[in-house]
């Protein structure tokens, strides 16, 4: 064991000391493949904290990831975890959730995985309001494959496939999520560890399609190519330039190169989930012959069925 302690006395046996986060990690597979100063691991700490504070039955929590550095989260978390194909964790998660609505399904994805190849699935899942939580670690690039330009790369940033600087307008993920129908939309950076853990907790508790974007550094590629220092320099930038605007209009949350970053909880609303809508429609049409699709215990016992007329404007 390579554990050392500062401030410890001789009475303590270091063999028995365990980082409290270890019980939710596959520590035997570490050190992780993430670079020094990569933000993904920090988000995992926040996620673990959110899980613990949520008092969910962790056997019922499943993590689904796509491909990329963020996609590797599934392999490091000690829950039922699925490392699927690039861009497709959301439809996998849809099948998983509809196959067993008692599961709490979390998608962990990156900016390219979610919004380039996965964009179509993202907007449909939000439209349907499938009851899953999507965590998007946005490092403004395709890290795993060497730092290529992606759908969130700010204009003028240098990238492997944009050697003269990116020139396409990037997506504003919170705005896309809101307009597609997500019921919970928040953005934080990995500097905001406490707020991020809270946002994850709220997103997990939220019924319907919840989305949390996390701005995080890719030190080896995005930071280095753009001469922005390392991961720590990125966190200092987030600290200096983040502006907390809870309830902000998501259309004002776009990020340009080293700009201010609007963070906060932007959307928190109610809509019937896809299963609510399905069961309601089928019960009305079929009547007595309909075998209601099993809803999770949570849904039937604690929360009132959402009536479409009651869900308000969105």
């Amino acid at each position, binding site marked *: 064991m390579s554990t*050392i302690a500062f401030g410890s006395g001789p009475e303590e046996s270091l063999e028995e000391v365990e980082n409290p986060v270890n019980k939710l990690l596959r520590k035997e597979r570490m050190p992780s493949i993430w670079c020094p100063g990569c933000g993904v691991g920090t988000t995992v700490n926040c996620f673990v904290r959110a899980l613990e504070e949520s008092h969910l039955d962790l056997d019922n929590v499943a993590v689904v990831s796509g491909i990329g550095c963020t996609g590797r989260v599934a392999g490091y978390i000690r829950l039922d975890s699925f490392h699927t194909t690039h861009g497709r964790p959301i439809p996998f998660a849809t099948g998983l959730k509809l196959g067993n609505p008692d599961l709490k399904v979390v998608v962990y994805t990156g900016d390219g995985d979610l919004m380039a190849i996965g964009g179509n699935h993202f907007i449909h899942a939000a439209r349907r309001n499938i009851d899953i939580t999507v965590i998007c670690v946005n490092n403004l690039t395709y890290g795993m494959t060497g730092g290529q330009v992606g759908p969130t790369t700010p204009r003028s940033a240098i990238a492997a496939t944009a050697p003269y600087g990116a020139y396409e307008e990037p997506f504003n993920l919170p705005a896309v999520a809101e307009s597609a129908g997500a019921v919970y939309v928040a953005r934080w950076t990995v500097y905001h560890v406490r707020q991020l853990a809270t946002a994850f907790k709220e997103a997990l508790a939220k019924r319907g399609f919840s989305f949390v974007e996390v701005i995080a550094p890719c030190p080896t590629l995005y930071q280095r190519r753009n001469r922005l220092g390392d991961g720590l320099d990125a966190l200092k930038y987030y600290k200096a330039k983040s502006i907390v605007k809870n309830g902000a209009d998501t259309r004002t949350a776009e990020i340009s190169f080293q700009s201010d970053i609007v963070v906060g909880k932007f959307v928190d609303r109610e809509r019937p989930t896809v299963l609510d809508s399905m069961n309601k429609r089928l019960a009305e049409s079929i009547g007595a012959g309909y075998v209601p699709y099993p809803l999770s215990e949570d849904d039937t016992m604690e929360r009132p069925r959402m009536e479409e007329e009651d869900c308000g404007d969105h």
Partner: protein
Amino acid sequence: MQKDNGAEGTGVKSKVKFKSVVYLETDLCKGCGFCVEFCPTHVLELGKEFNAKGYHTPRAVAIEKCSGCNLCGLYCPDFAIFCRKVKVG
């Protein structure tokens, strides 16, 4: 959580004394510096010592200032460092 670590006088006598301990799995550390930067009481510094991968690992230079908040643990992208309060004696 017991905030009085017994070392600073507040006029309240606590029966149980606590101190803070910072633990570091040196082999996991990648020397990113998050813990050093974001510890609110500046307990840590990146030291001259390094691990087998060549990363300079942090050490506590002011452990008595540690409040046990575990922000270091929350920030650490490699789950290498964390702190907690332990009972004294």
